[in-house]
Every structure is written in C-alpha cells, then in structure tokens.
C-alpha cells in the first residue's frame, strides 16, 4: 500500500483531510454570514462584528490551551470553575486583603496557574485520567469560589481597570488584541516548535513519545498550567467587561470552549488539530449565536442550532477521516 500517491495537500504539516475540515468549516461560516447578513442589516456591520469579537475573547483565550490539551488526548473541564475562582480572588484580594489592583490581578493569575498545575500534577504523577481529575476540580474550584465570596459580589473597581474589557485600542476592542496575540503565539508554538510536535506525538502515541525520550510529563504539566493561567486571564477580562465579580462567573465555559475546539476539527481522541481550526470554530459559534439572536430566534432555539452544527461537523469530519483511512 506504500505506493499510493498522496494528494498534494499532504505536503503540509497537518493531514490533508483536516485542512479540508477547516476549509469546509470556513465555507459554512461564510455562507452563514451571508444568509444572516441578508436577513438582518445590523449583523454584517463592522461595529457588530467587533463587538462579537469582544464577547468571544473570554472563551477564546481558554480555547487555545484547550486545543493543546485535546491534541494530547486530554481534557480540562475545570476551566469554567477556575474562571469563577480567579474572578472572586481578584475582587476579594483587592477589597478584603487591601491588595493594590495590579497586585490583585497578578495574584489571581497566579492562582489560576496553580489550579492548572494541580490538575497537571495529579494527572501526570498519580495517573488519574484528565476527565476524572478535572471533573473533581470543576466541583472543587467552584466550591472554593462560592465559599470565599459568600454570595457577595464585588464592584466599584477603579476606572482604568475597565479599559481592557470595554475600551477600544486603534478602533478594535482592547481585549481582542490580547486574543489576537495569544492566537498567533499559540499557532506558532503548535506548528513550528518541538513543544508543538511533542503535543501531537503524545496524542498519537504516548508510549512511543515517551520511549523516544520526549518530555511527556513535563509537557503535560505545562499545558494544564497554561490552561489555568489563561482561565485566570479570561477571568480578569470578564470582570473588567462586566464591572462586577460574582462566584457564578464562568459557569458552563468549559462546554463552550470544548465545543469551539472540537468544531474546529481537533480530534477528541488526540493527535489531530490546529489553532486555526479552533479560531474558525470560535467565530462560528459566536456569530451563529449573534446572528440568530438578531434575526429574532429565541435563546433556546439558538442552542439547538449550535448543537446541530456541532453534530453535523463531527459527522463530516469522521466521514472524511474514514475516506482517508480507506475503510
């Protein structure tokens, strides 16, 4: 079978069918844009699109490390709870410990990273499956957040803090710059570095990666820590945008994040995926939500549509893969 010529696209780093998957997704996205734009004149305006970018940043920041994690065949369900914990600690340490706000921000980012590191340590040292470990910390971190906040919200932050969440920089929402930088860095890391290659190797065959002398455990620790750190960053952006801190912040984020990553063609079984796919997945979900809402579709129906799109894309992806494998 070794003589079968592969299609030209196989010259790229990623398998050709994945490129196809992303292309296909981008085409669907484009069609959806045109249709929704035709139905509602407010949809396809620069203002609206930029605003959607603002709204998707919090999920987007977490979706990038989640792409890394899912490529290794892992998962992190605790990210939503880490957002809640970090948001609470940001407010609490500022108000109750009397930390200056910049220090409080650093503290909350640190806690986010530590929460992720804890996931990583238990997953690599004790060999608890990531699904189990992060379900446990999903409950644990949320419980901590609620315990610390005692159902009290924190508000009244200084004016400068709202810049990142509400202002524009060069005509683009400030937090969107943050997301854009994170996207570019993640994409380069995944595509061009030994770190990125190690992620794919772990997802495709962890034993062989280990036997080849790749630092499997260290890499896993790094990605789970990164995931916690980005959840912390997302919490800061979220608090700045909504001007208040509550313990129920970030509930359900893990599902939005995983949906975007998987919709973008990253295989839940590991080994396959790109940052570009995740970006398209993010855009797709956010714009569908917004477009449908603007056209007067009710909230429940929007969720149904998004669920249907997710199933559809998974079906197409698996049929493309089956064709590739020649089964």
């Amino acid at each position: 079978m070794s003589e079968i010529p592969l299609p030209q696209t196989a010259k790229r780093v990623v398998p050709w069918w994945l490129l196809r998957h992303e292309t296909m997704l981008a085409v669907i996205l484009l069609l959806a844009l045109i249709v929704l734009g035709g139905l509602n004149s407010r949809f396809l305006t620069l203002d609206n699109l930029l605003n959607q970018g603002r709204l998707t940043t919090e999920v987007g920041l977490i979706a990038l490390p989640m792409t890394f994690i899912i490529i290794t065949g892992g998962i992190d369900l605790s990210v939503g709870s880490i957002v809640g914990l970090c948001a609470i600690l940001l407010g609490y340490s500022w108000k109750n410990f009397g930390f200056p706000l910049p220090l409080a921000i650093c503290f909350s980012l640190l806690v986010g990273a530590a929460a992720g590191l804890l996931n990583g340590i238990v997953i690599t040292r004790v060999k608890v499956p990531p699904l189990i470990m992060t379900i446990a910390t999903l409950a644990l971190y949320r419980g901590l957040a609620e315990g610390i906040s005692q159902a009290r919200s924190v508000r009244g932050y200084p004016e400068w803090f709202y810049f990142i969440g509400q202002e524009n920089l060069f005509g683009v929402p400030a937090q969107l710059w943050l997301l854009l930088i994170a996207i570019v860095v993640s994409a380069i890391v995944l595509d061009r570095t030994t770190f990125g290659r190690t992620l794919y190797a772990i997802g495709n065959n962890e034993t062989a990666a280990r036997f080849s002398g790749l630092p499997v455990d260290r890499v896993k620790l790094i990605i789970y820590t990164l995931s916690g750190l980005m959840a912390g960053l997302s919490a800061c952006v979220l608090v700045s945008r909504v001007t208040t801190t509550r313990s129920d912040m970030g509930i359900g984020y893990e599902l939005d994040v995983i949906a975007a990553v998987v919709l973008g063609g990253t295989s839940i079984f590991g080994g396959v995926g790109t940052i570009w796919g995740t970006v398209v997945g993010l855009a797709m979900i956010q714009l569908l939500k917004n477009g449908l809402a603007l056209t007067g579709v009710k909230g429940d129906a929007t969720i149904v549509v998004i669920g249907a799109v997710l199933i559809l894309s998974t079906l197409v992806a698996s049929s493309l893969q089956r064709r590739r494998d020649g089964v």
Partner: protein
Amino acid sequence: MTTDAHSETPGTPLLSVRSIEKSFPGVRALSGVSFDAARGEVHALLGENGAGKSTLIKIVSGVFPPDRGEVLVDGKPVDLARPDDARRAGIATIYQELLLFPELTVAENIFMGHAPRAGLGRIDWRAMHEKTNALLASLEIHDLQADRVVGSLSVGNRQRVEILRALSQDARILIMDEPTAALTEYDVTRLFDIVRKLKARGVAVIYISHRLDEIFAIADRVTVLRDGAHVATKRVADTDAAELVQLMVGRRIESLFPKITVPIGKPVLEVKDLERRPLTRSVSLTVRAGEIVGLAGLVGSGRSELAQTIFGVTPADSGEIRIAGRKVDIRSPAQARSLGLAYVPEDRGTQGLVRPMSVRENFSLAALGKVAFGGFIDRGAERKLADDGVKRFAVKTSSLEQIAGKLSGGNQQKIVLGKWLANEPKLLILDEPTRGIDVGAKAEIHRLMGELAAQGLAILMISSELPEVLGMSDRVLVMREGRIVAEFSREEATQETIGAAMMGSHDNAEKAA
C-alpha cells in the same frame, strides 16, 4: 489423505483459489494467484511483507471481494461477499491479533454469536459448557477450563480458544495468519500438535508464516508469492530453505547473518547489580564498543524489562550503571537519550512508531534537538534528516509525508532504527529487531547491525530467534526469571547450550555474567 463422509470425486480439492486478481488504488495487490488445498493438508503461504498474502486470505475469508477470479469449496464456486459467507462455507480465519472478548469466559467466547439456545431465546448454559468440554477433549486440551475468563489466559491458550471457536462453527478450512508470532517455544509445539490433529480430521489448514523452520516442520506443500504473483507451489519434501528464500525474494541472500569480526573496544555500558523487581534481579553485564551482545531467554524472562530499566522507562531501584566509564543515574528515556543510549523497542506499533504521523516526523522524533534551534523546528533540516534516513536505510516510501503506519513492517522497523541512529548513539539496545518482518528486510537490518558495530557502536540485542542470536552475537547472555544465568562466547554458543540455559535444565554452576 483421510476420507470422510463427503461424496465428491476424490480428486477435488477442498479449497481451490483460481486466478485471483485484486487492485487497490495505485497498487496491484494480486495478479492471477491460484492455489488449492486438499482435505487434511497443511498448505503454507510464504512471501515477503507486501507480497499479497494478507490480501489473499482476506479475499478467501470474505473481507473483500476479488476483482477477478473465483474461490471454490468442494469444487463449487462460492460467493464470498461478506465474512459471514465464508463462515457458512466452512472457512475460518485466525488472525495475528486475536479477536476475543477478554472479559468473557472461554465457553462464551467460543460460542459468541451461535450459543446453544433453550426456550424463549435463552442461552442454554449447560449445553454450552458440555459442548465446550467436548471440543476441549477432542483436541486433548486438559489445562483449559470452560469457565475461565479469557483475559487471564496466556497468548497460547487464547489462540487455542480461537481455534476451538472455528471448530465450533464446523470449519473445514482453517486459515492461520502467523500463528506463532507471539508464542513461546512450548506453545508452538502444542500448536503443532493441534494442527496435526486437525489434519487427521480432514481439515485443510492454510498456514502463513515467516519462519521457514516451521514450514518444514508442519506443512505438506508451500506456495510462494512475490509482488502479488504466484511464484511456485512445491511439496515441502522436495525443497529446502535456501530455495524458498530465493523464490521469495527473487534473488540470493548472500549471507543471512553477516557479522563481521571487528576489534572490540572499551566498555560502553557497564551494569552492576541492577535491581528492579520483579523481573530485573541483580543483573550485571558489560557491552563494549564494536561488540554485539545477544540476550537470549524465554518470553517473560525479563529481557525487555532489563532493557527498559537501563533505558530509564522503569528506573532501577538499586545498582550501578556506567556509560563509557562514568557512573550515571538514569531516571527517564530523555536522560538515557542524552547519554547516548538508544532503544528500539519490541513492539513497533505501540512503542516504537507514532503510526499516524508521517515518515518525516517519525524520523526526527528522537532527534528533534538536532533539527531545532531555540525550540523552533527547522523544516529544511528536518526534511534533510528524514531524507538521509530514507536513503541510508532504503525505506520504501512514496514520500517523506507518507503516513508511517501504512508502510510494511520491515520499513516501519527501519524507520524506528533510523530515528535512533539519527541521534548518533553510543549504545544501541535492540529488542526483537526483526520480529514479524520479511526475509529481505531482515537481512538488511542484520547487515546494518554489522556495519554499525564495525563503526564502533555497542549493541545489546534481545532476540527470541536462536539462529539470529547465534548468527549475530559476539557474546550471548541468557536470562531466566530476571537473572542472567549464563554467558557464552561466540564459539561456545550453540542452539543446545543456549536452549538448555534458557529452560533452566542447565547446570546452575555455570558462570554467571
């Protein structure tokens, strides 16, 4: 040939395959292959990987249809569109990867899908056990109970369960795809006993194996395939190993074991009292530059465990390892690699190769540091590394971007070997380097080993094939129950001395290494 109740003319073969052709996109897998098997005949199929054996048996077992040609059972053409059709025609196939349910019992596995029924569609458990016991008795298997869970059985016993399952469906034609690949010597002997019993019952056995000695031990006739074409069918009594190898590869293999005598240098690896229970017990050994040390032993004697302990996969509990005279404490494969160690593991598919990744990515996997600068992979350097590897090891691949898992076993093994050599190691540990690969690729790997030793590489080779151990090694160590129990120089080593030490019938006063 045995006679039985069937009433065809005596000359009709039980299974007859006529001018089978099969193409896949881009390759012609079979071009007009014919062979037949009579009742009570063991007919061996021989050929290098990629010769078309697997395609042929998949056609006969109904996995996919041929483009042209037909399969006849009892002289009548049968339509084998689906595996179920083959089963009905009395054809059963035992694949290399056994298809059993590990959580279920022996009886449940045997009767999966055709369990005896009582009223209302309930399973008649008593009848099922009785039938299982009858099957066991008919093959004189006394150490297997019907209610044992299959997952707890040895590979040999699982294979027996598969054979029993085939018999429970009244299979008259049994196809066995490399049945001895994972068996111990003892299990091989027992398998042959069973095959002889089946033969006596009039079952036709299609036997696929790379091991020539097995073909001479068990087969009546042998059909050789090469590049999808039928090369020859011979009576085993009328041929010899050299002729078969020549037919198979289409050329003469000059010497199967080209060990060149080279000057032995300084010790590269010195291991003293290495301990990692349960399977590494107080092991001491030395491998010198330019030396190939063979490590023999039965399956389960602790050879792979020793290799993985040295390589840091399962770090040692106590003991001393010296690399080039310097004491080291190896805690991980990454560390072992940076010390100049390389380990080509036993299981290519799960430990050696990242099958879904490309040839290029596999070649650079253990040597990423060599093609990356500041963590960034230099694509050009990586491609060059892989390209050099493909050329040096003559890997047959359509491109560097070919998915490595789709190559033949021999080519996969060359990639795993090449991936490690790209790192320029001082010590190479090879764990079953030629298991399951064809004669041509095997000879190439042996030639490479000889060359590498000549360049001063120290090689520790684990092998279950005694001819390989004898042919390639400068020294032979024998392991049993986690200990090194004997050491032989090249001159002292023979099948008998090594075999005896492996089995433990050897005098224990034998000098331990």
